C-alpha cells in the first residue's frame, strides 16, 4: 500500500470519530468521546492505564521526537 493509502486510512478513522462526536453532541444517542474517557477513567484500572499512556505520549512526542 502506498503512503497515501495509509494516510487515507487514518483520515477515515478520524473522520468517523468526528462524525460520532457530532452525533453524540446533537442526538445524545452515543456518549461523547469525553464521556467515554470518563467512563474508562472510572474503572479500577482505567486511571493508571490512561495516566501511563498519557505519560508515554508526552515523552514520545516532546522528548524523543524528531521534528522537521
Amino acid at each position, binding site marked *: 500500500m502506498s503512503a497515501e493509502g495509509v494516510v487515507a486510512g*487514518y483520515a477515515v*478513522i478520524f473522520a468517523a470519530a468526528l462524525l460520532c462526536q457530532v452525533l453524540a453532541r446533537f442526538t445524545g444517542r452515543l*456518549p461523547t468521546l469525553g464521556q467515554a474517557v*470518563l*467512563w474508562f477513567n472510572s474503572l479500577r484500572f482505567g486511571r493508571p492505564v490512561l495516566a501511563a499512556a498519557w505519560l508515554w505520549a508526552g515523552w514520545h*512526542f516532546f*522528548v524523543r521526537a524528531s*521534528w522537521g
Partner: protein
Amino acid sequence: MKDSRAATPPWALLAVPAAAAVAWFATSLRPFTAPALVVTLGAGGLALVAGSRTRHRDGEPSVGRWLGAPAGLVVWGVLAASLAAWELAAFVQLPRSEHPTLSSLANAVFAAHAVRAAAFLAWMAAGFGIARR
C-alpha cells in the same frame, strides 16, 4: 446545594496563560536532551497535581447515563481498536516513508513551533483531565 463555582480554585484564572507559556518554553528545547525531559515531566507533574486538586463541576458532561448502557461506549472502543490496528500495521512495515505512523506524521506537523506548543498544551490539559476527581 453546594455552589459548583466554589470548586474553582483561585489560581485557575492564571493557569491557562501560565500553561501556555510553559508549553511554548518546553517545546523550544531540543529533543533528546535532559532539559527537555525535565521540563516535560515537570509540566506534566504540575498538570496532574492541579487536576487532582480540582473537582468536576455540576453540569459538566457526565458518564452516569452510559454506565448501564455500555453498548454506546463500544463505538469508541471499536474506533480506538481500529486506530491501534492501523498504526500497528504501518509500524511493522518499512520503509517509513511508504508506511507512515502517527508519530512520523506528527514529526512533520510539529516542525512548526506554534503547533508543537499547542499540542503540548493539549497534552497538559489531558493530564489535568485524567487526574480530576
